[in-house]
């Protein structure tokens, strides 16, 4: 019965989106100039009459989620496919459900082009997350280099930034790597979305905006002060934290919740810089990281936090392959403890170790976890040393934490509650009624606009440091050709996507590293999104179009493609 109903709900959503999509298409068709074949086609390669012996470019697909799963992404993909088709490129839309998208994109690499959206996570404030996605070391089938980009020059720059001794030295490598990616376009980032959210300013003061999340972040949990009757901060979320076990948790929602219960040695500050947290000092010398623990810290059960706990945690998370943390700790070869000082040895110097690993890895109490098999351990009464201590949990409804007054930075509120909602509309409604204080999810531009006039509610916005873009699968033709990729990138209708799909909620981009981060090279020129640029690339490589409109690979002798060898 319930399955049947599920199907009904899905179909309803799907048909709704379909209706809207149809309306958009119909409007576009009516308002545009009536198109009549060849004249309207904006072809981007030279026309030839004789196509004897030429090899056609096979039709390829743009992999994206279905309109029911992700309407925004589906619409963006549709506009991109239309723009490519209008230029004579044989692209087709291929919308499949979320699980299949991950399977083909991340697990099997079975796609031609893949429309992706990278969220603005804390890890991505460090350039390593994005840069590692184009390193040949991650190009294998279980890696995160979706494009399959392999370039020795790039690999050197990538490893160079990782092993750099100083920030300045690292900056040079990062910028060169960014420039190379921007030129070669193994993936074409085109937009950074506006991320906006809102909080209950009628009952709370002291909220700040942080890079990567305008409202819902640990600094607001700590410093927002109640001015009303309720002294516990209530955060509305759609996706609840399903397990409080840091060793088995897999979702970014869980990572945020856990960071309230557990301290990390370092935290990423509101400005995106790593700041010392449970560590009073962090020294990096080559491949050795020396951490001194802050004095007088205790776990929620009263036992002191020691260097032993830190060393134990690192070994334990590695040994049990904790999905959220083990990959970040990958390079650790040994840990040793001397009093309050923990020495971590890495297999090679890593500039990203402190801002990604140390800033997220939770310090677990050795006395709780020692001898526990984490796979069978629900950890439903978690003991950490963080600013909030576990109070209660109702599955599917709420998770409540109390302020931990013995913490070195105790929160202003008496506690924090995550309340799980059935839909984003219910969450917004609850904020307007003052039942909750913070929206834990990002809102669309129209939802933000509607809230801007609301009483006792304040909207805050940032530009994402993640991006929406297209991964080209360079393991396949024709995406192994630099010119073809640059032509496709130039044809992405960024302005249309921004105006029509996002209603102005985003900034155009053509590089992986966000413009607002210090790592970005401000002298880097934006990729041209003009038709001429695409035409120039295609003609330079030698592609031609037959009289029936079919796109062909360059004729022999005129083949100037810049190819990465196929596997």
């Amino acid at each position, binding site marked *: 019965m319930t399955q049947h109903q599920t199907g009904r709900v899905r179909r*309803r959503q799907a048909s709704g989106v379909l209706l809207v999509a149809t309306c958009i298409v119909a409007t576009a068709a009516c308002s545009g100039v009536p198109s009549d074949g060849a004249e309207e086609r904006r072809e981007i390669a030279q026309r030839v009459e004789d196509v004897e012996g030429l090899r056609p470019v096979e039709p390829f697909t743009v992999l994206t989620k279905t309109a029911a799963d992700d309407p925004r992404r589906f619409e963006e993909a549709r506009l991109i496919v239309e723009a490519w088709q209008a230029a004579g490129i044989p692209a087709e839309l291929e919308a499949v459900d979320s699980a299949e998208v991950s*399977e083909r994109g991340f697990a099997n690499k079975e796609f031609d082009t893949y429309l992706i959206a990278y969220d603005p996570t804390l890890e991505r404030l460090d350039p390593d997350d994005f840069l590692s996605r184009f390193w040949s070391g991650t190009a294998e089938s279980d890696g995160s280099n979706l494009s399959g980009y392999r370039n020795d020059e790039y690999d050197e720059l990538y490893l160079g930034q990782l092993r750099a001794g100083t920030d300045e030295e690292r900056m040079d490598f990062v910028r060169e790597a960014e420039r190379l990616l921007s030129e070669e376009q193994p993936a074409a980032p085109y937009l950074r979305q506006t991320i906006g959210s809102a909080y209950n300013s009628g009952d709370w003061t002291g909220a700040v905006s942080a890079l990567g999340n305008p409202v819902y972040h640990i600094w607001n949990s700590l410093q927002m002060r109640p001015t009303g009757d309720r002294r516990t901060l209530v955060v509305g979320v759609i996706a609840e934290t399903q397990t409080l076990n840091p060793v088995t948790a897999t979702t970014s929602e869980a990572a945020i919740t856990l960071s309230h219960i557990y301290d990390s040695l370092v935290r990423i500050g509101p400005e995106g810089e790593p700041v010392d947290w449970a560590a009073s000092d962090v020294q990096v010398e080559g491949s050795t990281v020396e951490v001194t623990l802050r004095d007088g810290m205790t776990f929620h059960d009263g036992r002191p936090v020691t260097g032993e706990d830190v060393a134990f945690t690192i070994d334990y998370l590695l040994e049990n392959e904790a999905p959220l943390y083990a990959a970040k700790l990958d390079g650790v070869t040994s840990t040793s403890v001397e009093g309050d000082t923990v020495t971590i040895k890495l297999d090679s110097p890593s500039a990203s170790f402190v801002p990604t690993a140390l800033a997220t890895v939770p310090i677990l109490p050795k006395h709780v976890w020692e001898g526990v098999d984490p796979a069978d351990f629900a950890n439903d009464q978690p003991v950490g040393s963080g600013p909030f201590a576990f109070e209660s949990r109702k*599955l*599917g*409804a709420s998770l409540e934490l109390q302020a931990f007054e013995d913490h070195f930075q105790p929160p202003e509120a008496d506690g924090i509650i995550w309340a799980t909602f059935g839909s984003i509309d*219910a969450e917004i409604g609850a904020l307007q009624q003052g039942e909750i204080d913070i929206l834990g999810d990002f809102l669309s531009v129209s939802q933000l606009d509607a809230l801007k006039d609301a009483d006792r509610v304040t909207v805050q916005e940032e530009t994402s440091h993640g991006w929406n873009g297209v991964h080209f699968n360079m393991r396949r033709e024709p995406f192994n050709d630099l010119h073809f990729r640059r032509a496709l990138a130039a044809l992405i209708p960024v302005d249309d996507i921004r105006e029509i799909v996002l209603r102005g909620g985003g900034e155009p981009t053509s590089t992986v590293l966000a413009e607002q981060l210090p790592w970005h090279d401000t002298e880097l020129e934006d990729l041209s999104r003009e038709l001429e640029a695409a035409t120039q690339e295609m003609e330079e490589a030698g592609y031609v179009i037959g009289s029936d409109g079919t796109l062909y690979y360059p004729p022999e002798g005129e083949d100037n493609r810049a190819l990465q060898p196929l596997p």
Partner: protein
Amino acid sequence: MAMLRYAVRRVTWMAVTLFLVTTATFFLFRAVPGDPSVALIGPDLDPSVQNKLRSDFGLDKSVLDQYLSFLWQALHGDLGISFRYRQPVTEVLAEKLLNTLLLVLPAMIVAFVLGSAIGAVAGVNWGRAWDSGLSRTFLAVKSAPVFWTGTLLLMVFSYQLGWFPTGGMSQLGGDGGGIFTLELLRYLALPLFLLSIVFMVEPMLTMRTSMLEVLHADFVELARAQGLSRRTIVFNKAARNALLPVVSLLPAVSSHLVGGQVIVETIFSWPGMGREMVEAVNGFDYPMLQGAFLLIAALVIAVNAISDLLYAYLDPRVRLT
């Protein structure tokens, strides 16, 4: 003796059906493309953890091995560990089932009691203004999509009038206390009202039709000839007999007791079985789905078996077939 033999046969079939349903669901969920490790990896979780997840979930073993260990555990009352919650399925199910029962059971009681009463009134007044008013209202309720009616209720009674909370089951950030507090009634009011009127339509319409038939039956004529009062005829004679088809609706709706109501739960953010099962499907949480479907199947089969046995007891002819 015949009754006993019938009961034994019936119970045996129950067990067989339950086994077949469990087996079918076990393989059906695994036949859906994709798997739980794939649903988790993506931009925020490195694809390299996939193998680790598969071995954690026991998916690296053969399907037959998985099936046998599932059967063996289920026989011992162990439904396994949920992939999403990483805690025993029985614990999660118990919590969600309680939430669902809190909402659905009262709604069903209200719906059947009130629905039959209103249906009786409409049936007696067949063709008059009363009847057409009532049946049109109920048909309108039945035709209106639940998500629309629910949203409308929220807009009026929560957002505009502020009488009821916008959703959830209990006060956030208050002293809360246990589940069974007076406060719960405020949270229960709107979803209970909505679910009651949705459930009420069928018993009401069934009762109305059935009443009409019964009112023309011989024994009613006889009662009339005996000079009994109209009230006695309608409620003591006719309504009692007209109630039988309404009662036979019960097994059909009993699956909601366990399956929950996903749309109502979503609108009112009620943490019940309906939402749980939708999310379990999306997250490929096989143990959770197996547990939930086992529970639903067991309940539906049991309710049907009980009603069959009751029929057999009430009507000797059933035993012979």
